């Protein structure tokens, strides 16, 4: 195949050639950045929480009136008993928060009270001795809390538990040489001894600001007994979650009606919690996907349109070539090669543009650097798209009969 005549022909259609190349370049730049964003979001929303999500639901219980801490604590313990009696319930624990909740109590952890800079941030989970079993966590070292260690905590008290359990991610950060059990860590209110380490437990927030301590949590042996209320995390036997949720609601109100369980988010299955936590990321990924597909479709349609015109314009020339002995394949290959040349120019320009856009996004939107794999995928997609789009008009061109050469218009 001779490239020279193609280039000569393209030189006569500078504007059209440039426009197609530009369109391919812009499409490539947008599509590979969009693909990259989709991948980032999808990777983010598939991070594990480390808990038995399929069988867990959460009750947000708020008290009416102004009961004091001791009263609230007693009512909470009654509630926990009530929930345990509900058919299908396997275990229950009270807490101030749960993974993917979005916000809550975060604290700074130090190894030494005199230290100026914190060693790490950490999510604070209040818990009783059922926390580990209820969430389905794996204790990798040390022991669980004992029932007599569980205290009563109000927002008004200082955070200084005698014993704590920490996650493996936090243990690795604080004690890189291993064996965190028995060591002392300092929370804002004072020291606590690590008695156990659990394997994997995600933080309550998965937003970017909390990504510095994503899996680092401290589990505190206290019931957060405040009149504002707190959460009950309930684990059910497999397959009985929905029924247990309905039964739990009725049972709680039957036992003590002086409470508020919001219609909107008072009772959430963990499936719901997960979908709420990642709604924005999923929405963004879908939007990026739709935009990319539509963009590719428009670019393909543009190529089809423009090439069709060129074929129409050159019918006579094609006829002459055919009459002079060019085969149908020659004609087909001519248009395919022409498109490939334009596309190459386009993707070359587009690759630079894609990297430039990505660099700008990195500074403006705290994104990561574009991996070359996505650029490569984008290039392949656009080259194939161009070849696919040009196929129909090129076939039509190859069917132009040689006799066309003798016709005047």
């Amino acid at each position, binding site marked *: 195949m001779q490239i020279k005549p193609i280039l000569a022909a393209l030189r006569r259609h500078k504007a059209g050639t440039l426009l197609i190349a530009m*369109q391919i370049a812009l499409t490539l730049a947008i599509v590979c950045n969009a693909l990259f964003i989709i991948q980032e979001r999808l990777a983010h929303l598939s991070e594990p929480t480390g808990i038995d999500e399929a069988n867990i639901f959460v009750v947000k219980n708020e008290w009416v009136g102004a009961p004091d801490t001791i009263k609230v604590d007693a009512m909470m313990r009654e509630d926990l008993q009530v929930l345990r009696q509900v058919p299908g319930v396997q275990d229950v624990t009270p807490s101030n928060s749960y993974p993917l909740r979005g916000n809550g109590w975060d604290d700074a952890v130090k190894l030494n009270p005199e230290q100026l800079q914190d060693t790490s941030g950490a999510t604070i989970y209040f818990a009783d001795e059922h926390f580990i079993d209820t969430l389905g966590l794996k204790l990798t070292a040390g022991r669980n809390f004992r029932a007599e260690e569980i205290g009563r905590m109000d927002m008004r008290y200082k955070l200084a538990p005698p014993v704590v359990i920490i996650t493996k991610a936090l243990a690795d950060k604080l004690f890189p040489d291993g064996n965190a059990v028995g060591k002392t860590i300092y929370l804002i209110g004072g020291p606590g001894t690590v008695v156990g380490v659990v394997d994997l437990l995600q933080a309550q927030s998965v937003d970017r600001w909390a990504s510095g301590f994503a899996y680092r949590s401290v589990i505190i042996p206290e019931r957060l007994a405040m009149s504002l209320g707190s959460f009950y995390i309930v684990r059910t036997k497999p397959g009985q979650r929905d029924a247990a949720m309905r039964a739990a609601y009725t049972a709680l109100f039957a036992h003590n009606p002086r409470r508020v369980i919001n219609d909107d988010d008072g009772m959430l299955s963990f499936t719901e919690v997960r979908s709420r936590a990642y709604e924005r990321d999923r929405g963004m990924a879908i939007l990026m996907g739709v*935009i990319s597909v539509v963009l590719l479709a428009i670019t393909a349609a543009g190529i089809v349109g423009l090439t069709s015109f060129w074929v129409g314009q050159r019918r006579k020339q094609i006829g002459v070539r055919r009459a002079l002995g060019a085969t149908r394949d020659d004609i087909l290959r001519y248009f395919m090669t022409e498109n490939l040349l334009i596309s190459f120019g386009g993707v070359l320009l587009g690759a630079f543009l894609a990297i430039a856009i990505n660099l700008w996004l990195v500074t403006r939107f705290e994104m990561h650097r574009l991996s070359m794999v996505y650029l490569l995928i984008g290039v392949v997609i656009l080259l194939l798209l161009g070849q696919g789009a040009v196929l129909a008009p090129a076939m039509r061109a190859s069917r132009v009969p040689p006799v066309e050469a003798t016709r005047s218009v």
Partner: protein
Amino acid sequence: MLSYYLDLALRSLRRNKMLTALMVLAIALGIGASMTTLTVLHVLSGDPLPGTSASLFYPQVDPRELDGYEPGKEPPSQVTWIDGMNLLHAKRADHQALMTGGSVPLQPNQSNVDPFYSNARYTTNEFFPMFHVPFLFGHGWSQSEDDAKARVVVISRTLNDKLFGGKDSTGQTLRIKDVAFQVIGVLDTWRPNPHFYDLYMGRYSASEDVFVPLTTSRDTRLEHDGSTDCWGSGGGDEEHAETQPCVWLQFWVQLDSATKVAAYKDFLTHYSQEQKALGRFQRPVNVRLPVLMEWLDINKVVPGDVKLQTWLAFGFLLVCLVNTVGLMLAKFLRRAGELGVRRALGASKREVFIQLLVESGVIGLAGGIAGLLLAVLGLWLVRLQPSDYASLAHLDLKMLLTTFLLAVGSTLLAGLLPAWRACQITPALQLKSQ
């Protein structure tokens, strides 16, 4: 003449329906996507209090200890109780208010309404005049009620509708956390966007349903909500929040002239120096006094995703326009013969140029109308989203006009190059080759 061109344009567009549809569709998708995202951005980056916001300022001082000090960094985004009260009582501004958010259990007297929790704002009396909050019934409270820790409450219109059936409820009693409060005012609908005075309570959330004097909220132990940021020996101990080294309150001032702003900044500097001399502040004096819109900017209130979507949509529109330019160019050049005849028959270059521009204008108009429909559809989809700003996404007149100008303007622009190229055709050459 124009109607003749219009007729020509419509004929030409009808001749190749597929191509026309493709061009209109591309423009419509580009316009629809851009207008949807632009409208959302426009709504989110709007001024919460038009006309007033320029005189509202958010004073910041740095009361933290030397630990972790880095020069040039922002002071905390809230104030401590001590600083808040000192600045409030200094009364150096035209209006000032100290506030924080919370969530309170309401126990309606009506037996048919179950107890429920409502968002509350604990604030000082000048909140209402300073932010120009409209009242439906009654009024706000005064300085003396702040001082007396009076059990008074101002409620929103929504809450008044729910509890009192929309009637004038001033004088009625509302039980909050087992304490009886007297309703003294009912607000008219008021929803500043963003929720500028406390960005920690949901940046685009609705304004609160219950307003209680700050001193009363402390006295009746209503829990505060939002962000509490402590340092040093601060343990976030709620009972002694007044003395804790924690920032948890927002302080706003109204300053009506540039001289007053400068004077207030001096006052903040003097205040910080004085506190440093007393040993309460340890860091070098670091005061800021951003005006409302600056404060929103510093806090990057508009979500990054929304900005990203807007850029993406405009990139999309650009591709659609390049696409249209290419197709129009091909189309116009293909009609070289026809245009050559027109030129030979006496049409000037300018007339041919206008004729072709009319044709691209028609495409732009059609694309604009279709794009507008797509934008309406797009905004409806946005409103189905769960984010707190979703319900705000509506097309206003300004955005409607922008859509049309953008659609027609950009297509005319897209038509310029093809039309110019087409009218360069030498008529003689075209006629000869026929």
